[in-house]
């Protein structure tokens, strides 16, 4: 129930950002919409901790800026590869075990890897992450990386 109320609140906040109007009708519609959506989510059985990982919200504030910096660095590296006429790449597949345990944590780590140009999480299975990297260095970089630690911190383990 509490989760439902929190979800309604979050969705309503989203509504307000989108709307920019504060007429009674539209605010009422916003509340109604948020409730309706939560009801439908309930029907879909997806209204669980995975869909609204609200507890992580504050940690986003330091994780995301760090990630943006990483992404920018990698993007610059890959850019250099692309524009070089010889394109000195060395595609590599690497498998490793990440440090996270929760689905949200794993997902964050995997997506962070993928978001970073030069590396892609191909698969997640019982043996860990399978990552495709554009260079051998990039492949080495994902194993036991700083990112792994940052995400684990973010996950709260």
């Amino acid at each position, binding site marked *: 129930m509490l989760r439902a109320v929190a979800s309604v609140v979050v969705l309503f906040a989203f509504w307000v950002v989108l709307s920019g109007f504060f007429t009674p009708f539209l605010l009422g519609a916003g509340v109604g919409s948020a409730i309706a959506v939560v009801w439908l989510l309930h029907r879909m059985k997806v209204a669980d901790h995975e869909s609204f990982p609200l507890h992580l919200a504050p940690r986003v504030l330091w994780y995301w800026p760090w990630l943006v910096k990483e992404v920018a660095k990698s993007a610059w590296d890959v850019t250099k590869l692309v524009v070089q006429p010889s394109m000195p790449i060395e595609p590599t597949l690497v498998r490793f075990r990440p440090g996270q345990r929760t689905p949200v944590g794993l997902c964050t780590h995997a997506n962070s890897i993928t978001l970073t140009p030069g590396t892609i999480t191909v698969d997640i*299975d019982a043996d860990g992450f399978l990552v495709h990297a554009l260079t051998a260095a990039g492949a080495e970089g994902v194993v036991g990386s700083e990112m792994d630690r940052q995400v684990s911190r973010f996950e709260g383990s």
Partner: protein
Amino acid sequence: MFAAAALALLVTISLAIVRAALGPTVFDRVQAANTVGTGAVLLLAVMGFLTDRPEFLDLAITYGLLNLVGTIAVLKFFRYGDLGDPGDSERSA
């Protein structure tokens, strides 16, 4: 400058279309289409910004969301040959 940005986006889209045409695998094409789609989202945003009409940004968001669903659908189709498969038979993570 917005013109430059828009131009760059159009060039990006065009190049992606070339890749879509070249293929060779269907996944290359999907990737290219995805790039076209996100490019279009940005283009819409630029247009909306340019003309000071937030509706265009709504359109961009809409397009972005649809692009995601579309891409996933296509991938699922080519991966399983079926859009409705619950995937129970699949080896799980």
